[in-house]
């Protein structure tokens, strides 16, 4: 069958090893236009490696990573991508406004500052230094930096890890606000409730290979929750 549309992002038969450890083995998936795809897996399943390959931060040993059909390593392709990664330390002496101003300057058609502030719920903390923010606020600023370039594809690598329930719910709201603009999002998480709450589609990987793919309801099947289904998948 002829492929008529180019998906916003896809991995095609990607294999990636670190020394003797195979992080990804012949992994393929695609992110479709306008959807939120959740990438699930236990710690060490290869979620972060998949994201790194998709963003062009790591080179696959075999296979291809494509964003709108192009190489994610090209600067031109990167103008269409935003990413929120797990980062150990962000420069703490710069203000929220300054971080966003700098990141916006990288992109050809950035989102107006006021819109970034509204979408990421940063009202009132624009002039605070990053180091003075709470954990939830820091995550929202990282989210703001990921969306300020008005990308068509947004990659969120465990965006709510370490957040309390309230901050997590707030982040979900911001993610929904962004998807409402017609964007496509790939989200990795190990909070299954998060996938259930946000995702149109879920893919589950284990030891670097795809083990399940479908809507949250399809993955859940007869199990009571997505979590039960997930545990069953990991055991099989």
């Amino acid at each position, binding site marked *: 069958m002829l492929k008529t549309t180019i998906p916003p992002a896809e991995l095609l038969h990607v294999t990636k090893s670190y020394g003797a450890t195979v992080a990804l083995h012949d992994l393929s998936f695609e992110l479709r236009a306008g959807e939120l795809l959740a990438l699930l897996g236990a710690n060490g399943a290869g979620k972060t490696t998949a994201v790194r390959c998709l963003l062009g*931060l790591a080179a696959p040993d075999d296979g291809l990573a494509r964003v709108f059909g192009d190489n994610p390593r090209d600067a031109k392709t990167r103008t269409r991508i935003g990413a929120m*990664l797990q980062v150990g*330390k962000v*420069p703490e002496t710069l203000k929220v406004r300054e971080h966003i101003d700098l990141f916006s*300057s*990288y*992109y*050809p058609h950035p989102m107006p500052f006021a819109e970034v502030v509204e979408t990421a719920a940063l009202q009132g903390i624009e002039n605070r230094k990053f180091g003075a923010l709470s954990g939830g606020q820091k995550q929202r600023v990282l989210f703001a*930096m990921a969306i300020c370039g008005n990308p068509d594809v947004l990659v969120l690598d465990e965006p709510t890890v370490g957040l309390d329930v309230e901050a997590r719910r707030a982040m979900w709201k911001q993610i929904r606000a962004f998807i409402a603009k017609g964007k496509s999002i790939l989200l990795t998480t190990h909070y299954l409730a998060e996938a259930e709450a946000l995702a149109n589609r879920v893919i589950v990987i284990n030891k670097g290979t795809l083990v399940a793919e479908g809507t949250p309801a399809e993955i859940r099947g007869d199990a009571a929750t997505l979590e039960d289904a997930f545990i069953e998948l990991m055991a099989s």
Partner: protein
Amino acid sequence: MNTFTIHYKEAKYEFLKLVRMPGYALPTLAFPVLFYLFFGVAFGSRNGSTETAKYLLATYGAFGVMGACLFGFGVTVANERGLGWLQVKRTTPMPVSAYFVAKTVMAMLFSAIIVLLLFTTGTLLGHVQITFAQMASMFAILIPGSIVFCAIGLTIGCFASSNAAPAIVNLIYLPLSFLSGLWVPIWMLPKPLQTVAFCLPPYHLAQLALRVIGFTRGGRSVGTHVLMLAIALALFTTTAVLGYRRGENA
């Protein structure tokens, strides 16, 4: 998205980031001036002569420039690379050059502030007799010369972990300064150490600055100093590029 704007903003925020960081800004700016006050101005003028204060103006200039570059590059790059910030930047369309140009401009700006502070201290407190043209020449040697130490700092930043980088920088900074004759004139060091100094970039930069104010003892020809600095620049730029590339595909 304008390439010039990106480079400008990157440099501006790099400067703001560091100037607001007391752990970097204070020692980098204050140490050369403080050392110079102790050893050049107070200690050096015991016999009523200002020659020591004049000599050390050039060598502490090299000392200060080296510190700004080694810490500004070595420690910040190791931190940003090791703790994931550089990776976040690499997901954006930011040209890689913006990141490094910004750090170089920042290091040169800090270097310029240090050298100007030293000139002020030397002329006002040390009563050093030095013409404006001599100061301008020394400035024009020390600030562009800092690029060599940017390359050395970048090499450290690209290879060392964020924990190890400050230790490594300190470990090479102080011995390198002593062995290059920045604290004690080179001709007063034992002969074998003078031979070692010939292989050290700070020695060559300091000698070029010293020539401007008439100190040639222990130095070589201008061509030799420039050549040795150029070799060091080429060598450490290569190692830095290799180090950066190594991280790109991990």
